[in-house]
């Protein structure tokens, strides 16, 4: 879930961690009522500041993705199906934006990107 956290990215690590967990919840990789790792576990596993994990969990709680039960842990909340779909759609948009920004930087045209996607998928998009 956290395999390519990028400490060198300007996106703060807490935001990257929160985003991965949001995505895992949206795709069902994390099920409702499932417990997230403890702050200590995740901080040492990812070699990040424990405060970074706390901040990620607080963000997720503020957005109603998880519930922090003091002394017990942090648990995934049930999401409305519409919300899960919206979350996946917003992740897809973020991926495309990243791709387009990179293409622009490299001087690759939109048509070329489109063509490459169609070739990779093996089908023509309408």
């Amino acid at each position, binding site marked *: 879930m956290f395999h390519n956290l990028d*400490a*060198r*990215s*300007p996106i*703060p*690590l807490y935001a990257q961690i929160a985003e991965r967990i949001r995505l895992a919840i949206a795709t069902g990789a994390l099920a409702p009522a499932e417990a997230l790792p403890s*702050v*200590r576990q995740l*901080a*040492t596993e990812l*070699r*990040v*500041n*424990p*405060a*970074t994990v706390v901040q990620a969990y607080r963000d997720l709680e503020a957005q109603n993705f998880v519930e922090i039960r003091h002394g017990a842990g942090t648990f995934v909340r049930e999401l409305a199906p519409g919300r899960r779909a919206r979350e996946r759609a917003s992740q897809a948009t973020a991926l495309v934006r990243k791709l387009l920004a990179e293409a622009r*930087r490299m001087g690759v045209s939109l048509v070329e990107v489109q063509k490459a996607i169609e070739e990779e998928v093996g089908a023509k998009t309408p």
Partner: protein
Amino acid sequence: MSHAIEISGLKYRAGSFELKDVDLHVPTGSIYGFLGPNGSGKTTTMRLVLGLLRPLGGRISVLGDRMPEDAPRILARVGYVPEQPHLDATLTVRELMTFQAAFYPTWDRAFAEDLVKRFELDDHRVFGRLSKGQKAKLMILLALAQRGDLLVLDEPTDGLDPVVRRDILTALLEYVAERKATIFISSHLVHELERFCDWVAVMDDGRLVTEVPMEKLKLGTKRLVVSGAPATPGATPFVILSRDPAPPNGASERWIVGQWEPAMSSYFQGVGASLVDVIDLDLEDGFVELLRSFRTSRG
């Protein structure tokens, strides 16, 4: 915000080296990275914080007490790992632990035993015959097991292999997660600090270049690609750290700026230039650019 370490106007001199009016504010509970080239004054500052050197001027407070006046009370609550091991080479790991424990009423025996096992230290071996990695682990063990509220770590992972480095960092992060302790850590390994520091300070030639929350440094330092840039930029909403002159082929200029925010791109329309690209810099790039502009501004 309370500070575990607060330094103002710190002055010190030894031979040709001079520490000039250093101010530092290490927030309680933070992991505070202390960066700077060799000889910039990191070790000297740390030794002053611990009362191992006497300042020529300025004020140092540590965990709410004054250094050097309250040194014994402060040192009882501070774990220190010096740059060079200072332990008796003829004592065994076990003897060194017993020795250290005698100085600290807060010494946690069970925790020390746990660390001996986790670090795979042979407690009958004398210090002088330990490998470099084992020495470093033992120093960390001694600093952690006294259960202090502040850890002062001078290049604790310098020159160690990645496995030992990871073991040490894991132990440190676990300690912070449990104890909410403050860590004041210097390192050459900029990327290592990038992952877990809340704050960074940069030193150069005995002076403080900057002290800033990590996120602010990383989010605010950018490389801008500018075309049609004016010869004199006038008043800019951001700080220009450096500016590479336009190449003769009419290509764009590259500016390194600090305190950047996206809304500031409107500045370029105002001066008849256009902003072609904004490129993120990582901590190492930011660090190098900060030093470069600091040195230029001082002539």
